[in-house]
C-alpha cells in the first residue's frame, strides 16, 4: 500500500478540494426537504402564494448552486485520478522493467502487461468515483439522519437504527461476495486460457480426435463459473430489497410517531413529509454506495495485483561500482555452482575456465547441458550459488548493472526486434552511433545487402517483433545491434541458426577482423549446437549436464573427447 500511496503525491489540492465541493453539493441538497416543508407548513397552511413562489425561487437557487459545486468537484476528481493513474502506471512499468523474467515468471508476460494497463485503469476509475461519491454518500446519509434529528430526535434515532441495519446488511453482503470476485476473475482467466489452448492446439486435438474431451473440460469450467456467478448473484440481489424493507419500515414507524406528535400539536404535517423525504435520501445514498461496491471490490483486487508486482525485490541488484582491469582475463568462471530452484539438480557444477582478451570461446553441448545458463550468469540474469563469475578481473556482482551490460553485446537465441525502424533498433544500445558505425555493424553482420535493397534503407519501418523481415534477416539485424556498441565481450547464443553455411562463415571472418581491429580487445563467446559454428574457436568448451567435460581446440577434442566425437559424428563431421 505504501508504494501505491506514494502516487497521491502532488494531488493533495485536488484530493481535498474535490470532496469539499461535493460536501457543499450535499449540504445544499439536504436543505431541499426543509424548504419543501416550509412551503407546506407556512405557504399552504397560510394560503400564502407569494411565500410559495419565493420558496420556489430558493429551490431553484439551491439547484443552480448544487450543480455548480458538483461540476467543480468532477473537475478536481478527473484531475486527481488522471495524475494518480499516470504516476502509478509509470511506477509499475519501471518496476516491471527492473525485474528479471524469472522473478515474474509466475505472473507471465500477459499478466504483467495487464497490471500496467488494466489494473491501473481499474484503480484509477475507483479513485475517481471515490472522490465523486466517497463524501457525498456518507454525508447524505449522516446529514439526512442529523436533519431528521433536528426535526425530531426520536425519528432521527429510528433512522439511525435503520441506517445501521442497512449498513450491516451491506457489510455482510460485501464480506460474502468480495472473496468471490477474485474467484470469478480466476474463473474467467481459466476460461480464456482454455480457449487459447484449444485454438493453439487445434491441429493436435483434431489429429487425436479429442474435441469431445476438450469440450467437456471447457463446459465444466464454464459451468463452474456460471454457478459461482449465480451463487454470488443470489446474495448481492438481496441487498436492494433488504435495504428498502429496512428504510421503509423506518418510514412507517416515523409516520406512526409523527401522527402522535401532530395530534399532540408538537409537529406539523409538513415536517412529517420532510422526515419521509430524508429517509428516501438516506436510502438512495446507501444504494448508490452498494452499487459502487462492485467497482471498489474490483479495484481492491487490482491494488493487490499491482502491489504484488511492486513488492518484488529484484534478486539481482546493482553492485557498488567498479572498473575492469585490462591485464586480467576478459571473463572467467571460478568453481561456479548454480541451480534454478531449490531441490533441482545443478544446472552448472564446478565450472571453471578463463577467456583471454581477443579470444573466441566456443561452447557446445546438448539440451540442458548448461550452455544458456552460462550466458545468463555472465550477464547476471542470475547470481551464482557458489564460486564466482569475473569480468575483467572483477566479480560481476561488484559492477553496477549498466557498467556490466555496457561491456557486453549479446545476441540471444530468440531474436527480438522492436517496432520502429531498422535505425531505431540498431541504435538501442548506442543512441549516438553515427551512420558509419551503423553500416560498419551491418557489414560485419552480413546485413548490408538486404538493408540496401530496402527503398528506405536504415529508415525502413519494422512492425512489432520485426514483422516484415525473414528469420535470417531478423537474426542478422540482432547481431548488428549487438555490434554497434563495439562491445568488449560479444555473446552469440546460438544466434546464427537461421543463417546458411556461407553467410555464417562470412560472419565468423568479419567478427575476427573486427576483433583484430579493436586491438584484440573483443572477446567472443559462441554458443552453438553446430560444430561448424565453433570448430575454429580458440578454445572449445564441451558441456554435459552442467559439467565441463572437455576443453581444447577442435582437433585435439576430436581426438581425445568421446562426447565431442559423438556430436561431430551426428553432424557428419569426421575431421
Amino acid at each position: 500500500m505504501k508504494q501505491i500511496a506514494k502516487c497521491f503525491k502532488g494531488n493533495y489540492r485536488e484530493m481535498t478540494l474535490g470532496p469539499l465541493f461535493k460536501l457543499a453539493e450535499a449540504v445544499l441538497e439536504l436543505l431541499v426537504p426543509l424548504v419543501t416543508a416550509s412551503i407546506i407548513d407556512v405557504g399552504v397552511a397560510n394560503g400564502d402564494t407569494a411565500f410559495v413562489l419565493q420558496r420556489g425561487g430558493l429551490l431553484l437557487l439551491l439547484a443552480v448552486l448544487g450543480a455548480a459545486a458538483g461540476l467543480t468537484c468532477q473537475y478536481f476528481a478527473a484531475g486527481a485520478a488522471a495524475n494518480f493513474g499516470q504516476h502509478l502506471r509509470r511506477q509499475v512499468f519501471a518496476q516491471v522493467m527492473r525485474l528479471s523474467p524469472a522473478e515474474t515468471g509466475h505472473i507471465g508476460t500477459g499478466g504483467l502487461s495487464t497490471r500496467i494497463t488494466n489494473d491501473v485503469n481499474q484503480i484509477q476509475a475507483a479513485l475517481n468515483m471515490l472522490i465523486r461519491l466517497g463524501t457525498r454518500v456518507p454525508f447524505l446519509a449522516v446529514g439526512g439522519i442529523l436533519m431528521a434529528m433536528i426535526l425530531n430526535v426520536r425519528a432521527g434515532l429510528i433512522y439511525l437504527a435503520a441506517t445501521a441495519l442497512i449498513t450491516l446488511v451491506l457489510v455482510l453482503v460485501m464480506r460474502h461476495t468480495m472473496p468471490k470476485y477474485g474467484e470469478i476473475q480466476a474463473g474467467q482467466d481459466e476460461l480464456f486460457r482454455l480457449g487459447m489452448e484449444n485454438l493453439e492446439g487445434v491441429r493436435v486435438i483434431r489429429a487425436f480426435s479429442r474435441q469431445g474431451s476438450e469440450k467437456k473440460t471447457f463446459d465444466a469450467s464454464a459451468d463452474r463459473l456460471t454457478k459461482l456467478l449465480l451463487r454470488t448473484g443470489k446474495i448481492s440481489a438481496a441487498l436492494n430489497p433488504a435495504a428498502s424493507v429496512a428504510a421503509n419500515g423506518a418510514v412507517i414507524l416515523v409516520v406512526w410517531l409523527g401522527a402522535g406528535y401532530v395530534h399532540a400539536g408538537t409537529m406539523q404535517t409538513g415536517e412529517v413529509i420532510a422526515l419521509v423525504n430524508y429517509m428516501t435520501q438516506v436510502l438512495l445514498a446507501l444504494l448508490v454506495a452498494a452499487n459502487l461496491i462492485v467497482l471498489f471490490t474490483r479495484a481492491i483486487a487490482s491494488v493487490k495485483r499491482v502491489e504484488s508486482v511492486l513488492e518484488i525485490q529484484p534478486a539481482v541488484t546493482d553492485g557498488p561500482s567498479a572498473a575492469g582491469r585490462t591485464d586480467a582475463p576478459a571473463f572467467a568462471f571460478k568453481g561456479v555452482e548454480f541451480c534454478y530452484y531449490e531441490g533441482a539438480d545443478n544446472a552448472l557444477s564446478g565450472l571453471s575456465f578463463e577467456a583471454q582478451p581477443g579470444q573466441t570461446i566456443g561452447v557446445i553441448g546438448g539440451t540442458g547441458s548448461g550452455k544458456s545458463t552460462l550466458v545468463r550468469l555472465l550477464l547476471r540474469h542470475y547470481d551464482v550459488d557458489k564460486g564466482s563469475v569475473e569480468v575483467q578481473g572483477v566479480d560481476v556482482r561488484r559492477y553496477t548493472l549498466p557498467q556490466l551490460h555496457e561491456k557486453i553485446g549479446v545476441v540471444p537465441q530468440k531474436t527480438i526486434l522492436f517496432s520502429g525502424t531498422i535505425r531505431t533498433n540498431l541504435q538501442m544500445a548506442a543512441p549516438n552511433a553515427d551512420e558509419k558505425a551503423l553500416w560498419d555493424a551491418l557489414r560485419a553482420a552480413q546485413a548490408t545487402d538486404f538493408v540496401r535493397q530496402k527503398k528506405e534503407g536504415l529508415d525502413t519501418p519494422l512492425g512489432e517483433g520485426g514483422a516484415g523481415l525473414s528469420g535470417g534477416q531478423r537474426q542478422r539485424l540482432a547481431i548488428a545491434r549487438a555490434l554497434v556498441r563495439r562491445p568488449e565481450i560479444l555473446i552469440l547464443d546460438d544466434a546464427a541458426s537461421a543463417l546458411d553455411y556461407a553467410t555464417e562463415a562470412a560472419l565468423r571472418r568479419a567478427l575476427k577482423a573486427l576483433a583484430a581491429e579493436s586491438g584484440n580487445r573483443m572477446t567472443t563467446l559462441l554458443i552453438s549446437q553446430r560444430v561448424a559454428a565453433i570448430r575454429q574457436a580458440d578454445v572449445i568448451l564441451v558441456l554435459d549436464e552442467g559439467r565441463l567435460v572437455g576443453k581444447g581446440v577442435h582437433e585435439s577434442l576430436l581426438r581425445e573427447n568421446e562426447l565431442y566425437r559423438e556430436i561431430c559424428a551426428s553432424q557428419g563431421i569426421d575431421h
Partner: protein
Amino acid sequence: MRKDTLKRLLSYLRPYKTQVVLALLCAFASVLLSLLGPVFIGRAIDAMLGPGRVQFAPIVRVLSLAGVAIALSAVAGWGMQVLTRCLSAKASQDIRRQVFTRLNEVPLRKLDRRRHGELASRLVNDADAVAEGLMQGLGQLFPGLVTILATIGVMLVLNWVIALVVILITPLSILFAQFVGRRTARFFRSMSNAQGATSGFVGEMVEGRRVLQDLGYEQEAGRQFDRLNADYTREYRRAVLYSSFINPGTRFVNAIVFGAVAVLGGIYAIHGGITVGGLSVFLNYANQYTKPFNEVTAVLTQVQTAFASVERLFEVIDWTPETPDAKGALAPSHSEGYVKAEEVCFSYNKEIPFIRSFSFATQPGTRIALVGPTGCGKTTIINLLMRFYEVDAGSITVDGQEIRTVRRDALRSLYGMVLQDSWLKQATVRDNIAYANPGASDDEVVEAAKKALAHGFIKRLPQGYDTVLARGGEDLSAGEKQLLCIARIMLAKPDMLILDEATSSIDTRTELLIQKAMERLMVGRTSFVVAHRLSTIQNADEILVMDAGQIVERGRHEELLEKGGFYAGLYNSQFGGV
C-alpha cells in the same frame, strides 16, 4: 442494434420461458407494490388533520397495508433479480458453448486466418458482456418502464397539470445526457486510441524486457513510456471530465422538477386542487419517475455493448462447419500404409492456384521426405493428408480408399503427428504424454518417455511426471517440449507418421538418439517427414523436392545430388556441401 439480432438473442431465452414469465410477473408485482407504499403514506398524512384531529384508526390500517406492500415488493424484487441473473447467465452460457463447439468444427483455414487471442476473448469477454447486457436489459428496462407508466398514471389521476409538468421536464435529463454523450464520444475515441498505443508499447516492452535490460535500454524505454503515458493521461482527463458532467446535469434537471412540483403543488393545495398528503405522494412519485430516466443512460451503454458482443458471437456460430462425415463413412482402425495422391490441386485464394497436379504414391513402410524453401507448400500437403484442408481437385487415397469417404477421426488416428510448434496442455506431464491414450498405465507412459529420451529431464522436474506444465510448458525449453510431443506419439503407436521439422530445435546429439528411437518406430510405418536435417533426408526412400506448390524433382538423395538441379542447389546452400 438490429432487429433480427435482438430476435435471435431473445430466442436463447426460449428454453427458460417459465422463468422469463415469472421474472416479468415479479418485476410487475415488485414495482406496483413499491409504488403503493407512498400512496398509503400519503393517506396516513391526510388523516393527520391537525393538533387533536388525527384519526388513528385509518392510519393504523393504511400503515399496516404499506408494510405488507413493502415486504411483498421486496420479496418480488429479489425474485426478479435472481431470476434475471439466472436467465441471462444461462442464455449467455448456451451461446458460449455453441461458439466453443463451432470453433472445434469449422475448417482449420478459418482459424488459421484469425488472431487466437481475439477469438478466445469472444468466448470470455463477449459472452460476459451478453450476460451483463441481458441482465441489465431485463432487470432494469422492464421495471423502469413499469415504473414510468405507473407513476404517470397515478400522477395524472392526482393532478394532471402538475403531472404534465413532471412528464415534460424530466426527459430533459436524457436530452442533456445525449448531448454530452455525443460531444464526448470523440474524446473517448481518442482516449482509447491513446490507451491502445500505451498498451501496445507496454506489451512489446514487457515481452522483450530481457533484451532491453541487456542492451541497457530501460532508461530510454522509460522515457518513451512517459510520453505515451502523458498523452493517455491528457486524453483520459478530458474524456472523463466532460462525461462526468452528465451526472450533475441530470441531478439539476431533477431538482428543477422537484422544485416545480413543490411550488405548483403548493399553489394547488392553497386553492384546494390537491391534499397535502396527495402533494407528499406527488413529491415522492416525481422522484420515482425520474429514477429510470437517470438509469437508462447507463443501462443503454451496457445494452449497446452487449449487442456488439452478441453479434461477434453469432458471427462465429454462423461459420460453416466442416462438411460432416458422410453417413456410412468408413472407419478403418488400421492402415497398411499405402498412401496415394493423384493430381491434387489446392489454393488458398481462388485466383492464385497453389498446389498443382501433386502426385505421389507410397509403399508400406517407406519414408517420404518433403524438402523445399519456406512457403513452398510442405505444410499444406500435411494439412491435406490429415484432411485439415480439403483438396480442390484430384484425390488422396489411403489403402486405396478415397479419404473423403473415410471418417475424419478415423483417418487422423491412422497418423501420428509431430508439428513445428510443440503444443502441450496445461496439465501434468503424464496427462500430456497420455493425451491420445487417456487410459494408459503409468508404466506405459514412462516407457514412452524413455523411448523419446524425455525421461531424463522429466525426472529433474520438481514433481517429475506429476509436474503441471504451466501455460503449455512455457518453462520448458523448445527441445524439451518437442521431446514430450514425441513421447506422446511413442505412446499412441500410430500406423503412419507425419513429422514436420520435428527435431528443428533439439540439439544434434539428442536428435541422433531420438532418430534411433524414431527409426525403430518408423519400421513398417509409412512416414512423411518435412526435414531440413541431413540425416533424415539421406535415409528417405523418396525425396519430394517442392517449389511454389509443385514437385520440381523427386528421387533419392544421391540421384538428386548427381542431377545437379534445384535440390543440389538447395542442399549446397544449406549444408555447405561435403
